[in-house]
């Protein structure tokens, strides 16, 4: 109810994101656990997450896996002639195994990540993109990860 809303509730999305980008509660009622921690109700926490998903601020609540533990992934890049960029980007996006796909400012201007349950499928997708686009695909698999992923540090200025 709007009348019950407090200033803390207005800040709830920020407080949630500061506190649950990692170690999301692994308990039967995780949203209730977060609510208890933040001094609000489970219903408000659920509403705040629904809103953040609707706005796109939170893509999902989920897991980030250590590379190549569950499945196999590879960063790839193509130098696409500008007049073909939309077409080739759409081709790349059409594979469900492609989870990121960005245009970047460089002669190699299309950057994407292919993640598949195994390396054979991953490589088949990269081969298919190469064949169907007629363009060379740079394959840039990860060799070493130097960063401990703690989530994204937001400043709410």
């Amino acid at each position: 109810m709007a009348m019950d809303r407090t200033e803390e509730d207005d800040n709830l999305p920020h407080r949630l994101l500061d506190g649950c980008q990692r170690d999301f509660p692994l308990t039967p009622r995780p949203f209730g656990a977060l609510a208890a921690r933040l001094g609000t109700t489970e219903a408000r926490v659920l509403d705040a997450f629904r809103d953040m998903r609707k706005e796109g601020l939170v893509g999902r609540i989920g897991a980030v896996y250590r590379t190549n533990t569950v499945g196999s992934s590879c960063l790839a890049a193509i130098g696409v002639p500008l007049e073909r960029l939309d077409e080739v980007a759409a081709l790349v996006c059409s594979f469900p195994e492609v989870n990121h796909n960005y245009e970047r400012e460089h002669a190699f201007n299309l950057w994407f990540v292919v993640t598949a349950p195994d390396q054979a499928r991953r490589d088949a997708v990269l081969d298919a993109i190469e064949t169907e686009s007629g363009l060379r695909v740079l394959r840039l698999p990860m060799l070493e990860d130097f960063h401990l992923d703690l989530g994204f540090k937001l400043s709410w200025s």
Partner: protein
Amino acid sequence: MVVMDDKDLALVAALRGGLPVAPRPYADLGRVVGITEADVLRRLRDLQDSGVIRRFGAIVRHHEAGYAANAMVVLDIPDEGVAEAGKRLAAEPIVTLCYRRARALPDWPYGLYAMVHGRDRREVEGQVAEMLRRTGLDVHPHAVLFSRRRFKQTAGCYGRERAP
């Protein structure tokens, strides 16, 4: 190497779309996979403890959070110096991810990657230049690739919905 069974892989696949935003989300996941809520929680804890899951929580979309300037900094550093440079960059507060990747010679000599996100492009350009100067890494060939359009950003296609 962690051994994952079919139920683990099915759980990973069910989680791809995100944890349901509902009071008993792990019970909901369990119904999809065909296991109990307690089993879901036990498996997720095991995957986290064994390091398969590096992070479990809300995945923030940088662009929507107001961090529209996204730079991929790439450097060509001789192999024997890459690990030290990588650790140095990873410790920088503005670097959110730092990897060593295979080079793709002759077209792509760069093997070290650092991702930097910021609210403003000019600000990020300044921060990156300052960081490379201060760490002394600016003597190596490098490039800064800002993102222009985002065509797709979803979860990775991990796991298996059905046993192979």
